[in-house]
């Protein structure tokens, strides 16, 4: 009985000690971000949803080969028509108008967000495929998970950086480093 009572007393004192620890934390700034009214902008290297720029793409297929889960598919555009030869002049070079690619799909149901496709993309100075900072990926059907770009569509994310059009509006968003305690 005596042992029991001393255990209860000891447990009570230790609970108070624990409460003292929690009390100290009450005066620290809060770290909760009120999503969705407040949204955080991740760090620049964050691997979010893939953005694709058909203007920069050269349809080389490096991303298709790099992908571990085979989620990317593409088709090259037909070769540009060679202008009709004119008598007495050297043959004119083929002139292409528009992107070098016919269609391009990414299956987000398979995507690992590993970044290997972005690393393998050879186009310069800007990559044709890159991870944007968009993390709000919601799909209601499996078909929606496959994003498809085809000739005539508006391009995905022609603007660069965190304001690449997939992640708008940025003005009312807080950067991850602006959250107290995460500084």
């Amino acid at each position, binding site marked *: 009985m005596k042992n029991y009572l001393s255990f209860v007393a000891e447990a009570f004192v230790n609970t108070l*000690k624990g409460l003292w620890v929690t009390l100290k934390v009450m005066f620290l700034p809060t770290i909760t971000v009120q999503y969705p009214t407040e949204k955080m902008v991740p760090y620049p290297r964050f691997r979010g949803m893939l953005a694709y720029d058909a203007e920069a793409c050269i349809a080389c297929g490096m991303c298709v080969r790099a992908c571990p889960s085979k989620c990317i598919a593409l088709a090259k555009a037909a070769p540009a028509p060679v202008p009709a030869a004119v008598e007495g002049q050297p043959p004119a070079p083929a002139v292409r108008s528009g992107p070098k690619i016919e269609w391009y799909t990414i299956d987000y149901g398979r995507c690992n967000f590993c970044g290997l496709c972005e690393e393998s993309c050879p186009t310069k100075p800007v990559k044709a495929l890159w991870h944007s900072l968009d993390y709000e990926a919601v799909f209601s059907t499996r078909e929606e998970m496959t994003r498809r770009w085809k000739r005539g569509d508006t391009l995905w994310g022609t603007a660069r950086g965190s304001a690449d059009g997939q992640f708008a509006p940025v003005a009312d968003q807080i950067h991850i480093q602006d959250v107290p305690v995460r500084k």
Partner: protein
Amino acid sequence: MTDKTSAALKADQMFINFGPQHPSTHGVLRIALTVEGEVVVKAAPDVGYLHRGMEKLFEARTYSQALILTDRLDYISAMHNNLAYCLAVERLAGVQVPLRAEYLRVLTAELNRIASHLVFFGTFAVDMGAFTPFLYAFREREMILDLFEMLCGGRLLYSYVRVGGVSADLPAGWTEKCREFIAFFKPRLKDYDTLLSTNPIFKSRTDGVGLISAAQALSWGLSGPNLRASGPDYDVRKAEPYCVYDKLNFKVPVARTGSCWDRYYCRMLEMGQSAEIALQCLDALAAPELAPEIMTKGVPKMLKPAAGQAYAHVEASRGDLGFYAVSDGSLSPYRMHVRGPSFLNVAILQEILTGCKIADVVAILGSLDIVLGEVDR
């Protein structure tokens, strides 16, 4: 009614399924328990609910593609999986790694160990009925995840360590942020002791419960803090130093009795040691004479090692994690075997759960700190 349950009924015993949907199993683990009143008379862990055929998937990918699979084994400490895999492939292909990359690997591995042990600390406390430590553990872990996001873009699945080096160098401001975190984190360990380690209610539920003798631990192949809590002082970082661990100064906490509390406290002490190692790595990385290369030149994306085999193991958060790679000279591994510490740790349950009280099942399972992604692979 199966034969098992009917036999249990006849012997005045009861057959209970612990899991696979029980919140305390930390995933999809099922333990088939036969109890007699409060006492467990037979326990059989049943694994395989999360089996994805990982070892086979390795064979269908090139060496650089297969890296992302390793993230998904022990997803709480993915950095160690990346590291062990890359060490095995580097040994297979005879690739040397720049010193700076070695320091970065150790730095991220130790930060990941802290993050992983924090998850253990939080969930083990929840299993024991204390909710507050969970919130604090995840607050600190969030800071480490922020650091990793800043470094490599991933918060959980990093793919940071690559064959021949690492994928990225430290961004501007990272070192300061990391030092700030460690300065914030070290005093928190004292708070954790006040909240949980020395709490008599917590101690009475864990101290002296689920005892594993040193002989038992060795014969069942335990590793990591679970082994060291029982007495044997075996740590891959000390026994077979990889990367730059032989240049770093740290201690390996060892306990004696092998109770749940010992396993818990070994991990708490390891977090402090990991923070020390991280500081030493930051100092080494700041040295101006360290060459800035982080990736060996001339390691192709389509790696084609000569036919052969190699084994490399690291001290992951949960124990001795090894990768055994066999190459037949083609672009993808011929065979990749994973020695997952969680799988071996979960096996001992059938021995130590026998004879314990049903309330202690949760404590013992929680103290082993298993990750089902690695158990089932």
